[in-house]
């Protein structure tokens, strides 16, 4: 059995953390794209579109992310579609994030006073113009802090991908623990790395919230 120094452990964890970061970024980007689409469907005035998005959001918010990962990984496999752990994780996290992000964004759009819509209507703006010039610019500003805040959930959510065998930070931690039998040390390091990834994000969210609240009203 080879000997692992503390540096070896840390080095391997940091290498694996790259995959955590990459998976998070992918999930966030993918989730944003799908989420944006869902948001527009949800705030459209077409009943069928609204229902579809509602059901979608209920499903992804109402089931554990782990189950979604299992279904993406094993379920698609049973259907004869061969997916790697990486693809399954990216897919499941994207869909999961999109459900939450679109719900956050819909809330932001709907939180704007009805008077904004009415004033736009009275001035003769149509739906798209009202969206483009009045609603979205204001909703975007409100949406930034909770969106950044949710990215913390994504980073932590990637840990579950370890269970389907994707070697990211948590999985690397498990493997290193199996090799070194030093769970406290290994997992403390793992936790620390997660913290270093998430803490700046939650601070950024708080900062943005304060900043956009105070200055936000101005411009």
């Amino acid at each position, binding site marked *: 059995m080879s000997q692992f120094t503390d540096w070896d452990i840390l080095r391997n964890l940091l290498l694996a953390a790259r995959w955590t970061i990459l998976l998070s970024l992918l999930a966030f980007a993918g989730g944003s794209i799908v989420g944006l689409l869902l948001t527009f469907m949800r705030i459209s005035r077409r009943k069928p579109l609204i229902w579809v998005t509602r059901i979608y959001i209920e499903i992804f918010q109402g089931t554990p992310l782990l189950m979604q990962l299992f279904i993406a990984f094993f379920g698609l496999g049973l259907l004869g579609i061969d997916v790697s752990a990486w693809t399954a994780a990216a897919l499941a996290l994207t869909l999961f994030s999109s459900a939450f992000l679109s719900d956050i964004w819909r809330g932001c759009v709907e939180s704007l006073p009805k*008077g*904004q819509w009415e*004033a736009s209507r009275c*001035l003769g*703006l149509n739906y798209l113009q009202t969206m483009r*010039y009045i609603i979205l610019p*204001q909703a975007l*500003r409100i949406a930034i802090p909770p969106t950044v805040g949710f990215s913390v959930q994504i980073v932590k959510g990637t840990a579950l991908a370890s269970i389907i065998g994707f070697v990211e930070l948590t999985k690397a931690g498990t493997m290193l623990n199996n090799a070194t039998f030093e769970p406290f040390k290994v997992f403390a390091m793992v936790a620390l790395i997660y913290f270093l990834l998430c803490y700046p994000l939650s601070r950024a969210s708080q900062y943005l919230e304060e900043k956009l609240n105070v200055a936000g*009203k101005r*411009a």
Partner: protein
Amino acid sequence: MSLVSVRDVHKYFGDLHVLKGIDLDIKAGEVVSIIGRSGSGKSTLLRCMNGLESYDQGAIILDGMEVSTDEFQVRKLSQSVGMVFQSFNLFPHLTVGENIMLAPTLIKKTSKAEAKKLAQEVLEKVGLGDKFGQYPEKLSGGQQQRVAIARSLAMKPKVLLCDEITSALDPELVGDVLKVLEQLAAEGMTLVLVTHEMNFARDVGDRVVFMHQGKVHETGDAKTVLADPQTPELRQFIGAVL
């Protein structure tokens, strides 16, 4: 021919019959004050006049156009009718100038330079020529409301609908807004106001429409009606307000 013609309009909110057959004609240049208790249907009537609210029966013709809530129709109507709200509803992310320039540039395709000139013009008119670059939240309520009026004026409407536009203001700011309305009235603008300002209704208004339980209960020349109400309901209402 009247500029606004309301014919036997009925409106329901679910089971609630809020407008029970309203008939009303408003001539160009007239200043009409709609008064009544809350829940009498006066705001609803006003909101029906520009298609913000639908009605279930009857007809409203404004400047020769049938009023409906259809988006295309509302857009067409917006060229003839402006509306000012109790809560101002300025766009907080735009400057005063941008608030005013938005609709002319988007809807009437006015050029930027021209829209800017127009905005400055209407701002001068409401006495806020120096506020062009300010954001609405830097202004007092009275100033915001005057910007809202200016924003409506920039579309050069034939009728301006005012929905309790002084009700959310501190008492000392009400005067400035009313002064703007008075000036507009003097210039011949057609004004339809839902209001609790009885003095204004009497001194500036031409006609008073008293609404009670979804109907026009009493109407006539402003000075006459307010000085000598014929129905006990109006008498009671005036007694309660003054």
